[in-house]
């Protein structure tokens, strides 16, 4: 086996050195009747065979790039520059652990410091951590953090939160003893311009998604004012981080915690993971944050250096009283995110966001022109909801099979119990959406809805 360097002669010599006869003598603490069970598993395969197997398995999936593609709903298809992947595959990044020894981990530590800075700038917050698992778990952690800060146990959640994020919150809350209070729901595609309205008493936080699950965007400031007037924090959850290239930073508009799914930059679709959760807040709450933080310092020769810091918040120091149980995070995805954003820069991000928006506007105009389809949104970034004249899941299936177009995410996939949303379709467009793709979608919808 190519991953096991010891030869039989090595093993023999090592057993002799240890002073035992067989390797199973080293397993003498294991009850003998359970040692070496028979395993109903296939025999070993070589590299050639494994590649064949996975090409076959992968071939049974339709890749997003195989044809026109309009899915979003919390995961977005973007172009990733080739340098990103080349750099994250450098062995020194790929095969290192959490940077516990700063003298030989400055590569990881400095890239985390840069990542934290990029996330803070994008979200308009003072500080960001070194990543969470994904957007949904970052969102749940934000709610727990707000509860810790305010010593209150209710979180008011706006209706536009992605159902998977909502359900993740609900699970965490059940076990953490928090209460999820739903706020009034807007029409799909509409943003409540005046904020949440009346808030329940004793809220730790108000949580609003931006853009919301139907793609609508609007002013965050009234939400911040309402939350703060009630002594609560405002948490803004961003499912598509590229949007922040075109949208006002929530932190600047009063959000106390901003969480986001960072998958759009550098990471790719990957059937849902690994992704990267972004987590940012203001300086005054930094000691309540979950997750790792890289900080600047100097070494004994006075050179700028980076270390993991404020670890007294974390499980390995604080154990049962830690701010979170997170240990392994999403380091390499954070690096991919950071490299992609470094390549984009200020002007590239603005342009990328603008291209996404323009592609979505063109798609919306084309779809709205189809009889039996009407775009629900007044505002949106790169995703919007369309009301169809029949169940959206059927339309998506028909268009996929007959036209080779993946037309979007039927709202029923996210809200199977909501009869009123059965005819809504979520459509996303990005810089990868061509005019020819848009025309194929329009034609497919016309032929299907006829």
């Amino acid at each position, binding site marked *: 086996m190519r991953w096991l360097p010891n030869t039989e002669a090595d093993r023999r010599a090592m057993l002799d050195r240890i002073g035992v006869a067989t390797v199973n003598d080293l397993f003498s603490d294991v009850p003998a009747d359970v040692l070496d069970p028979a395993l109903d*598993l296939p025999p070993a395969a070589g590299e050639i065979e494994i590649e064949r197997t996975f090409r076959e398995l992968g071939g049974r999936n339709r890749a997003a790039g195989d044809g026109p593609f309009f899915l979003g709903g919390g995961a977005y298809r973007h172009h990733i520059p080739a340098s990103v992947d080349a750099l994250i595959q450098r062995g020194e990044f790929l095969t290192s652990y959490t940077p516990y020894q700063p003298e030989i981990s400055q590569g990881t530590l400095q890239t985390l410091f840069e990542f934290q800075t990029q996330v803070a700038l994008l979200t308009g917050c003072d500080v960001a951590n070194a990543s969470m698992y994904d957007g949904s778990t970052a969102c749940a952690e934000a709610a727990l953090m707000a509860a810790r800060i305010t010593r209150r146990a209710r979180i008011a959640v706006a209706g536009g939160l992605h159902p998977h994020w909502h359900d993740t919150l609900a699970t965490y809350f059940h076990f953490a003893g928090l209460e999820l209070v739903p706020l009034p729901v807007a029409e799909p595609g509409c943003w409540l311009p005046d904020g949440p309205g009346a808030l329940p008493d004793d809220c730790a936080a108000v949580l609003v998604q931006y853009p919301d699950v139907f793609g609508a965007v609007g002013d965050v400031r009234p939400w911040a004012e309402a939350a703060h007037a009630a002594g609560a924090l405002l948490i803004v959850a961003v499912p598509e981080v590229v949007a922040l290239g075109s949208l006002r930073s929530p932190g600047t508009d009063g959000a106390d915690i901003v969480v986001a799914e960072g998958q759009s930059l550098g990471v790719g679709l990957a059937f849902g993971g690994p992704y990267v959760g972004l987590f940012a807040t203001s300086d005054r709450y930094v000691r309540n944050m979950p997750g790792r933080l890289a900080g600047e310092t100097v070494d004994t020769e006075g050179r700028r250096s980076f270390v993991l810091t404020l670890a007294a918040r974390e499980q390995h120091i604080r154990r049962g009283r830690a701010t979170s149980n997170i240990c392994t995070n999403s380091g390499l995805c954070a690096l991919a995110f950071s490299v992609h954003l470094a390549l984009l820069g200020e002007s590239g991000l603005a342009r990328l966001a603008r291209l996404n928006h323009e592609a979505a506007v063109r798609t919306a105009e084309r779809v709205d022109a189809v009889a039996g389809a009407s775009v629900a949104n007044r505002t949106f970034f790169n995703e919007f909801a369309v009301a169809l004249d029949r169940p959206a899941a059927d339309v998506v299936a028909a268009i996929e099979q007959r036209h080779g177009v993946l037309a979007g995410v039927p709202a029923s996939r996210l809200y199977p119990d909501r009869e009123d949303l059965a005819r809504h379709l979520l459509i996303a467009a990005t810089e990868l959406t061509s005019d020819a793709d848009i025309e194929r979608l329009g034609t497919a919808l016309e032929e299907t809805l006829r």
Partner: protein
Amino acid sequence: MSGTQRGAPDRVEPLLFELGAPGRRGVDLPEPTGAATRLGAAERTAEVGLPDLDEATVVRHYTRLSRLNHGIDTAFYPLGSCTMKHNPRLHEKLARLPGFADVHPLQPADTVQGALAVIDEMARWLRILTGLPAVAMWPAAGAHGELCGLMAIRAAHEANGEARTRILVPDSAHGTNPATAAFCGFEVHKVQENPDGRVDTASLKAALGPDVAAIMLTNPNTCGVFESDIRAMAEATHAAGAYFYCDGANFNAMIGKVRPGDLGVDAMHINLHKTFSTPHGGGGPGAGPTVLSAALAPFAPLPWVLPGEGGELRLQEQAVGPAAASFGRLRAFHGQMGTFVRALAYCLSYGRDGIRKVAEDAVLNANYLRAALADTLSPAYPGPCMHECLFDDSFLDGTGVSTLDFAKALIEAGFHPPTVYFPLVVSGALLVEPTETESRATLDDFIGTVRALVARARARGPETGGFADAPANAPRQRTDETRAARNPVLRWKPPTTCDSMS
């Protein structure tokens, strides 16, 4: 700033933010049309503040930074509890096939049958290797798997009308164990260890009671020894109406050799980024699939992968039908596909016979180190050990050298140090985990180095300051962690006018 684009890797690399200039670009994108927007009141008016960089500068920046890191690819990395084994590049190639990397999680089921098959097949391997009937594939890492397991346990007690509040955890446990228990609304109750590094069965039995929801043990434990009394502890736990959560971070010692299901375990997470060789990437991502006993299986998180009517696979995303008792969602979508592809490729490469060689060679390597260093370092417990070996710092008595100093001296010698000061149950712990992908020659080199360092520490004596100046040849000398924590600088900030005047 002393940053420069020239020179040796110990130079200070400028930050991205110090390298930019307006007008550079690292990505050539088409020109937007400038059409009217539909962003409403949300439209951005201020700059983000990111630097503009060209591609070559970015590539050089990260390449230079990478050279400041130690990785498994660079040299030996015996970081206990972290299982730093070789990361095969085949797996990187496979995970990047468009059929896995470029697939959206919400595509219709008939377009993702290959992805669901990978999850299903990985789940089958994990069930067979652990001897447990169900597995929740979705946890994002070990700690998330712990959460999954404890949630299933609490859900099972709740379904039984019981509100049990306590979890028994030994002091040697990894920090995530008590943190997870608290996260999940439980009280942590400590159990005692024996002088041989194992949980004291009598003290565990005495602590069991009607308010105990579960015991949470690691096996092999963080002291690197197998809990030989594990079945008795499991039986006592079950007799008290509680469940047995096993931290499976150390599954590398057992894979193919022992099935946790045969030991009475009810729930156990498996760190695919340890035992199954998926890369750690400087801190993540990982995956923490959590196997569950029959009693806990009904509570497994959503979604469930189930066979459809025509033999195809489907995702059951609602808590209805067979999944009616599920405790709900743990996260968006369905798991770490990229990690599953790598881990499954790992399994298929070893096959049923090869996979137990992993545990055998891991345990052999650890015991070889232990035997060769027993007279030089101070093993914390009598042997044999499993896949890692714990030493305390009594071998440094009188030298003035601390465990930390010794670790830094190992860095100077070109090795990544072992895990230090964990577990907490011995003084100045050094936890050495060689893994099975290291050769005897590498181990001999390490052994020789350790011997020489210990000799040097003793020869120098306490008055010379030990290894306080190590690691002299590393990219950095020792860093001022107190300063970092006291006055946290957690991001770059643009220089203010004042700064630039001075």
